[in-house]
């Protein structure tokens, strides 16, 4: 039913465009001056046809389930049931009306199911009728105004302006919404786990907080020494550090090569390739780390008599570094390229060699931009999940030995949210706390990076 309504609206909107345009030609041929190009007449009619119908259609679709649920559950409302139990009844009624229910059928349930079915069919029928009426009304209104040769360009422009406004509003609101949901869950979490236990605790062992039965009371003492974030943060920064040890030297040197030494031809061909490398999915790097690099390091370790775990921070960090190389290289190439040519000329004209020019003029001039690029790379390293999950294990050990396994914020979020979970559980809420912390850390890094890059741009523009 919904798709039929939807199609009707789209088809009507399309045909009203041509209809409106045709009307404009007709007005013109009667020697009246048009107030806008004919296409605006088309847009005008088309927008009036589609916009109100779509708005009502979406609002209806959003509120219908809530209203239906409220009406169906009304007969149960005086029994003093819990919210969860009511939900359960509603779900049962729903599946019963679809014929998918296999449990015990009581009369009350049967009545609810019947009510649900009849409500649904009334609702969808009235929806179709209302929208059809609306379509006819709005087209008639717009056509009437249009035939009086009223202005069409301004309303169309205003509509477009609002359309863009709502698009950007949606983008902003979803972001804000996500941050707030993180925030609320995190606050819930800190009601059970003291903030300082989280921030300075030395043990991260969420498996201890097994899934509780909903009826059982919550015992905060059970969680002491469970959600200490220090090992997770240490692991995150440690692995990111290893990654940057790989990515900065290689990425920077290759960026310098691309910008200063490579011939135009080579650069044209190498730069896209480097950028393609940046597009390899991280899972691929992940199994590369877990299946190739990890065992390889372990073999080498055994050969020289070291105890290397098959899942080591080194394997994850090194592969993550490789993943970030193209990022650093491409960004620093851009930054170095935007150092004005006349600085190079000035240096060469003084008799400086290429490497002297790079070291003493170009690099210092590009440094702020390069620092910005590196900070952006760091925030990518910190946010990287897949490689760590696959290659560095899931136990958050507090260690700074690169040969042992350790874990990161993102990997721990995965660990926590895999499998069964309850929303009201501190274990689940811990994931939100971690997520929020990660968000704050990356946000700070990005703000610093962007402001450095911006300052640097201002200097040369």
């Amino acid at each position, binding site marked *: 039913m919904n798709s039929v309504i939807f199609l009707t609206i789209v088809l009507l909107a399309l045909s009203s465009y041509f209809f409106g345009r045709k009307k404009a030609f007709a007005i013109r041929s009667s020697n009246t001056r048009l107030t806008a190009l004919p296409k605006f007449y088309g847009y005008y009619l088309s927008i009036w046809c589609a916009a109100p119908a779509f708005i009502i259609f979406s609002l209806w679709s959003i509120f219908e389930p809530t209203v239906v649920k409220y009406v169906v559950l009304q007969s149960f409302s005086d029994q003093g049931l819990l919210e969860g139990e009511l939900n359960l009844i509603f779900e049962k009624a729903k599946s019963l009306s679809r014929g998918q229910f296999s449990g015990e059928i009581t009369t009350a349930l049967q009545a609810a199911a019947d009510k649900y079915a009849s409500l649904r069919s009334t609702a969808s029928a009235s929806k179709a009728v209302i929208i059809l009426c609306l379509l006819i009304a709005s087209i008639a209104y717009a056509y009437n105004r249009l035939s009086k040769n009223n202005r069409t360009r301004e309303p169309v422009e205003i509509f477009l302006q609002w359309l863009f406004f709502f698009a950007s509003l949606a983008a902003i609101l979803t972001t804000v919404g996500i941050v707030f949901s993180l925030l609320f869950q995190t606050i819930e979490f800190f009601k059970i786990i003291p903030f300082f236990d989280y921030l300075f605790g030395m043990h991260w062992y969420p498996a201890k907080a097994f899934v509780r039965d909903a009826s059982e009371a919550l015992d905060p003492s059970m969680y002491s020494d469970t959600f200490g974030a220090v090992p997770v943060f240490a692991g995150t920064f440690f692995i990111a550090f290893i990654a940057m040890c790989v990515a900065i030297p290689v990425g920077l040197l290759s960026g310098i090569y691309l910008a200063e030494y490579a*011939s*135009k031809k080579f650069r044209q061909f190498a730069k896209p390739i480097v950028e393609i490398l940046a597009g390899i999915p991280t899972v691929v790097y992940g199994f590369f780390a877990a299946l190739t690099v990890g065992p390889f390091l372990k073999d080498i370790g055994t050969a020289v008599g070291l105890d290397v775990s098959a899942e080591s921070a080194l394997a994850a960090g090194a592969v993550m570094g490789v993943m970030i190389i193209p990022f650093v290289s491409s960004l620093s190439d851009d930054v170095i390229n935007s150092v*004005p040519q*006349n*600085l*190079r*000329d*000035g*240096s*060469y*004209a*003084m*008799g*400086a*060699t290429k490497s*002297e020019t790079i070291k*003493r*003029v170009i690099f*210092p*001039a590009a440094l702020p931009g390069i620092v910005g690029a590196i900070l952006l790379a760091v925030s990518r390293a910190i946010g990287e999940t897949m490689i760590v999950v696959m290659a560095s294990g899931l136990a958050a050990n507090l260690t700074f030995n690169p040969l042992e396994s350790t874990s990161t914020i993102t990997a721990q979020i995965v660990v926590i949210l895999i499998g069964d979970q309850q929303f009201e559980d501190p274990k689940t809420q811990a994931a939100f706390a971690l997520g929020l912390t990660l968000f704050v850390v990356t946000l700070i890094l990005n703000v610093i990076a962007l402001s450095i890059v911006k300052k640097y741009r201002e*200097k040369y523009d």
Partner: protein
Amino acid sequence: MNKIEAKKVNVFYGDKQALFDINMDIPERQVTALIGPSGCGKSTFLRCLNRMNDVIEICKVEGEIKINDYDINQKSTDVVRLREKIGMVFQKPNPFPKTLYENISYGPEIHGMAQSKDELDQIVEDSLKKAALWNEVKDRLHEPGTGLSGGQQQRLCIARAISVKPEVILMDEPCSALDPIATAQIEELIDELKKEHTIVIVTHSMSQAARVSQQTGFFHLGKLIEVGSTDKIFKNPNQQQTQDYITGRFG
């Protein structure tokens, strides 16, 4: 005595020829001005003299350019030494994003000209004095060079160029980004510098060429149409084209 002798110089950018058979002698300790309409190859010729065209990938230079009777277009030429001897000042002031002091000390350090910090300080001071900038900046030597005014920046670039005691200074429209007062200061400076250095200057201003130079060369479409003493070129040129350009009837 001739400091520079160019013989049959041809320059190509890719397939396009930018200079055709240029023959030109540049006398020592005098100012030689290069004039001509835009795109005629003045900068290209200037850049041949310190092999700055090497920097441009597609640029090819043919012919013989002798400086102190040594052909700099040979394979064996040490470009680093050459550019130490032939300094250059560009159209747009291009101080390095470093302090004033570091801007000047850059060349002497690269070429290992100072044995001690004191010696380096002395070079910096001398260069800034010669460039008539010392009094304005002596209290702020350790501030960034990009913080100066345009005219000061250009004098800083001149100071940077003379810090390595070059024999020749090439200037490519050094005053085109400057106001009349700064221009007058630079012209005065050029007059002063020619006592010790040979100077080649590209300019679009006829009056500037007439004021500062002793010899003038007129380029047109990649060819050197006429070269001679500035007096002769401006008062009684051999070629009609030169006459037309100088009197502004060119077109």
